């Protein structure tokens, strides 16, 4: 029973169990996947003024994004050209220049080296030509995307392929942010992604929490490497929405009511609902540890807590924190249900008998497509 595939009796998964458990796979993914693709890094509003910056890890590369005096965003590798010290931490404002904490080399927000203390000790080198290593940044619908390469093989729009046509009506740039939520799950990042795009579990794991959408009428498919998903509301939900229009985002017309639940490859979930837009940043921390950073946007009207909670009470605890139940499967919170399923699957992978017996037609196609795309980036035959 050493080969888990032997336990299969239907369509088998494309990735072996060690893809979810081994440090070697994790390292290769960081190098060959996350370092080489465009990734969501934040919102334009995070850096609205000249000098505002945030830092972000892009695979192996620490990168920061800063708004220039010309109001353009620029991305640089967050390493000093002297001896590589990290320049900036987290988020902040740095309009007068970026000073390395180690020996005080100073860079402009355009990445030029503008001052070196005791410059005479570098008399033999030409410092004029030195600047921070550039990375790439592009924005779309108020979202900021970064790429570690200053001249990436494809621009953001080419990378997004036909996904924008299926994104839905949401205009994140028109919305305001409510408190972000951060989870850490003891599961491989791919289990989290697969759970996010698995249409089969919606009927079952979330039977009591996500029952306001009509899973049987879901439309989904790959647009380039990205998975686009939409399902309409059930009749109950539709009539609830019709009598609570004041909560609904201006950009979401009645024909677009429903749930847009997309996965930008490799690991950014975008969820657009009638009253909110959320980004799920799925950040691999280790082979069996993943951070999920959820950023939630809504309109100004809903932001006042009372209205927000009232509006969302229909959404089975979407953003209401834990409801206090010890059993995640009785928490009424679909995120807790998902966490339970993901962590249990990860744990089961330790068992020599672990195996995926069969993969459904249709509802689980996303999972296989996702695995195929991961394998392609790592140069694995599937």
């Amino acid at each position, binding site marked *: 029973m050493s080969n888990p595939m032997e336990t299969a009796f239907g369509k088998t998964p494309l990735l072996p169990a060690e893809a979810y458990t081994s440090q070697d796979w994790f390292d290769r993914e960081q190098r060959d996947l996350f370092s080489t693709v465009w990734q969501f890094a934040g919102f334009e509003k995070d850096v609205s003024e000249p000098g505002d910056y945030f830092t972000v890890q892009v695979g192996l590369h620490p990168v920061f994004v800063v708004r220039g005096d*010309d*109001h353009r965003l620029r991305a640089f590798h967050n390493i000093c050209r002297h001896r590589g010290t990290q320049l900036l931490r987290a988020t902040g404002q740095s309009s007068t220049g970026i000073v390395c904490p180690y020996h005080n080399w100073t860079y402009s927000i355009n990445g030029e080296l503008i001052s070196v203390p005791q410059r005479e000790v570098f008399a033999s080198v030409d410092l004029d030509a030195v600047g921070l290593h550039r990375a790439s940044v*592009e924005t779309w619908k108020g979202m900021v995307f970064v790429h570690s390469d200053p001249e990436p093989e*494809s*621009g953001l729009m*080419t990378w997004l392929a036909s996904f924008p046509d299926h994104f839905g009506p949401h205009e994140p740039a028109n919305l305001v942010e409510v408190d972000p939520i951060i989870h850490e799950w003891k599961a491989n990042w791919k289990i989290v992604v697969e759970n996010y795009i698995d249409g089969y579990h919606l009927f079952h794991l979330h039977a009591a929490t996500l029952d306001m959408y009509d899973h049987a009428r879901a439309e989904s498919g790959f647009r380039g490497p990205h998975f686009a998903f939409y399902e309409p509301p059930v009749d109950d939900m539709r009539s609830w929405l019709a009598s609570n229009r004041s909560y609904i985002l201006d950009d979401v017309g009645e024909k677009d009511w429903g749930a847009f639940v997309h996965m930008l490859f490799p690991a950014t979930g975008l969820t657009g609902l009638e009253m909110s837009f959320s980004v799920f940043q799925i950040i691999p921390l280790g082979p069996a540890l993943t951070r999920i950073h959820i950023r939630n946007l809504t309109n100004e009207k809903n932001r006042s807590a009372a209205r927000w909670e009232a509006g969302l009470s229909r959404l089975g605890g979407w953003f209401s924190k834990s409801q206090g139940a010890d059993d995640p499967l009785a928490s009424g919170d679909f995120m807790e249900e998902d966490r339970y399923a993901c962590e249990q699957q990860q744990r089961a992978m330790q068992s020599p008998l672990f195996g995926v017996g069969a993969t459904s037609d249709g509802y689980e196609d996303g999972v296989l497509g996702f695995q195929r795309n991961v394998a392609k980036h790592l140069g694995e035959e599937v």
Partner: protein
Amino acid sequence: MSRAFRLRVADLRRETTEAVSVVFDVPDALASTFRGVEGQHLVLRLDIDGREVRRPYSMSSSPSIGGPLTITVKSMPDGVASVYINNHLRVGDEVSVEPPAGNFVLRANRDGYRTYYLFAGGSGVTPIMSHLRAILHSEPRSHVRMAYANRESKSIIFNEELGEMESDGRFRLVHYLSGSRARSWGGSDVRRRRLDKEEIRHFLADHPPVSQDCRYLICGPPGLMEAVEGALLDLGVPHSDVLLERFTPPPAKRSDHVFDGASVLVDVAGSSTSAVIKAGDTMLRPLIAQGADIPFACESGICGTCMAKLVTGEVHMPITFALSEAQKSANQILLCQAQPTTEFVEATTT
């Protein structure tokens, strides 16, 4: 090679009391010769009172969209060509016109996803208009932010067409009016201010880029161009993202090192002409007087029509706007600007 073709004036459209659009009839046989790309200019060779006057005029039409070849000319006080075109040119007249040329051109990026900042002043709107239409038409993802400076509302060329284009959500336009009698009109964003450095800073802050791949196009009177370019570079815009088209040259710098009585030789399409140049004169006119068929237009170092390659000797050029850095290092010179600083100078236009 200086090639000009007789084109018939098909239509004259009055844009403002001071500006007229001239529509040319291009015969099918010349269609590809005269197609050009957005931002390029034509050189008109006008016969005014028995004298040939050459002037470059930008296309205000957008070749990539189609529509007839059009230029738009603003009458300058006592201007020889512009007054003639505005007041004396008639539909049906034939004019000698050189095909489109010039470097004020754009190449779209792979994604067709950019933010364009357009800065126009007065008649400088012509090549900007040519670009604007083409961008909105051929790059459905790109956005355009335009600042357009005029003295007063009645002198705004293309005001109506621009107003209609504002219904495209990807295009935003701010008018800057500097005259004391300037007034606003319905619907448009009008600031009664000069478009100076401070205003440009505000303009960029009010219109942050949509795509982060930006291009900045500037065309207008010298003072405005200098202010806009200076402000952009001060704010950190990379030089390579800025594209300028100058209609008028700034005051020229003199050189003390010019050679008096230099012998020059120019080769134009295999035929050589020589001339002697007095101190302070440029090579162009004396060579033409000796029969050299050198193409030229602006005679002020901005259109690039008279470009040649320097083979021997050295020259001083007061104005070299028409030359890119690459052209300068490849020894390209402008004959209308070139004053010999060595005894012998040799150049070729081929």
